[in-house]
Structure formats: structure tokens, C-alpha cells
């Protein structure tokens, strides 16, 4: 003991040996095997959790994709913007006949139809 510099930068081998022996739990192999086993099961458990989450997740994603696809299809193919005037207008009848605020006179209607012919 005497002659040891307490600030010695080298480990004290004798003291270290006593401490190691004192604190040694022994059977490191069994301990390591137990932890290794837990690592494997931990990994399995993680995959199980992911799998459990994946099924409903995929189903939800598929539903959203189908819904989105339908919405996009409808948005890309809009209904024709037909007006009431277009619907009731006879083929070839000029829009001016029906566009006025006042009801057209019978002469103007017949005239317009005759012009188209």
C-alpha cells in the first residue's frame, strides 16, 4: 500500500482485483444467454405489433385510395353544364329567341325558324 501515488493515472491492479471479485455476479454466460433470448423475442414482439397495426392500416389506406379514386374520376368528368334554355330550345332555334326578358312574339319565333331552314 505504501508508496502508491493516490493520483496515479494507472489503475491499481490489486484494488481492482479485489473490487472485481467482490462485485462479480458470476455465470455471465447464463446471463448473456437470457438477454440474447429476450432480444430475439423482443424483435418478434415488435414485428407482431407492426403486423397487427399493418392489417387495419392497409385496409384503411385501400378504402381511402378507392374513395379518392372515385372522387377524382367524378371531378375529372363533370356533368354537362346544360341550361334550361338549352334543354327546351328546339334544335336550330337561335338563342336570341329565348334569351330575351319578354316572351317572344309568334312572328319572331316563326321567322327565326324559317331563317334556319
Amino acid at each position: 500500500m505504501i508508496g502508491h501515488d493516490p493520483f496515479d493515472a494507472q489503475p491499481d491492479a490489486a484494488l481492482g482485483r479485489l473490487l472485481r471479485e467482490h462485485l462479480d455476479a458470476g455465470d455471465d454466460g447464463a446471463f448473456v444467454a437470457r438477454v440474447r433470448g429476450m432480444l430475439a423475442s423482443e424483435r418478434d414482439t415488435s414485428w407482431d405489433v407492426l403486423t397487427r397495426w399493418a392489417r387495419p392500416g392497409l385496409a384503411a389506406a385501400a378504402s381511402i385510395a378507392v374513395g379518392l379514386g372515385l372522387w377524382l374520376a367524378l371531378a375529372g368528368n363533370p356533368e354537362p353544364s346544360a341550361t334550361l334554355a338549352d334543354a327546351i330550345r328546339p334544335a336550330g332555334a337561335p338563342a336570341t329567341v329565348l334569351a330575351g326578358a319578354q316572351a317572344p312574339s309568334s312572328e319572331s319565333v316563326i321567322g327565326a325558324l324559317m331563317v334556319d331552314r
Partner: protein
Amino acid sequence: MTVVTDAELAAEAASGNPDAFGRLVERHAPAARRVARLFLQDGDDADDAVQDGMLSAWRAIDRFDTGRPFRPWLLRIVLNSARDLRRRRVVRRTEQLPDSQASRTPGPEHETDRRLLRARLDAALATLPERQRVAVTLFDAEGYPHAEIAALLGVPEGTVRSDVFHARRALRKELAPFLEEVR
């Protein structure tokens, strides 16, 4: 044969290889168990803490920076587990105290008995502040450099040197006959 470094094993483990992490456990478990015993003063509790710490490290391995040393990173996680466990089991430890107190006064006729050495060491370690216990054990028993211990404990390197000095002085005084035997 090429020795695979901790960093290489940690990188493999981070890619999901439990066997690589198992090899790291194999390398560092003995020291981790000893240090955990310092904290918990109970072998079973120490093993529980090390096991919890190892599993936490495995879950966090993808966040480990392989540019830094693995050993202090792992040991810090283990020490945190030991502290958590000690907080949870503080009542149990208090109940165990009378046994260790009783073992401090064995008769002189058993001077060479291993049990006396154990009792002396228990008593000597119990008189040390926790940081000194850990510092001297990591330095003298595990061969950690001062800088690594400082990083692990979150204190300046000079503090670690001072802790090792005071702890050594106390332990050498208490264990003088045993140390003479093993030198």
C-alpha cells in the same frame, strides 16, 4: 482473425441484427453487472437493471451515433435503469440494511476469511459517496480512462481524479491486509 469493433457491431445491430447486439451484450455485460451491483447492492436487482438497460439499448440502437464510443453509451443506459430500479425498490433496500450493518463487526479470528473481506469491502464501499464508488470501480476494476468516466457521470475529468483519489485512500486504509496479500 480480425476483431470486429463495437462500432461495427452496433451498426449491424442498428440494421436489425439481434445477433450483433448479442455480441455487444456478451462483451459488456460483466462490467455492467458489476457496476449495477454497486448501485443496487443486490445481485438479482443488478441483473434485472442490466437486463432492462440492455433491452432499452437494443430498442434505441438505431439512434446510437457509431462515430462515438459504444461502451459509455451502453453503460449510461444501464446506470439509468439501475437508478430507476433503486427508486422503485427503495423500501426493500432499507429492509436489507440491518444485515450488512451486522456483518461489519466480525471477530478478529476470521481475519483471513473471505467473508471478512466481503464484509470489509461492503463496509468500505458503503462509506463512500456513490460517485466515488462508481469512479474507483470503473477506474481500478474496469480500466476505464478518467475522461470516459467523466463523460459517463457528467462531471469534469478533474472531479473524477479527485473521486478516485479519495475512494482509493479510504479503500486502501480499510483493506490494507488484504491488499498486501494480493500484491
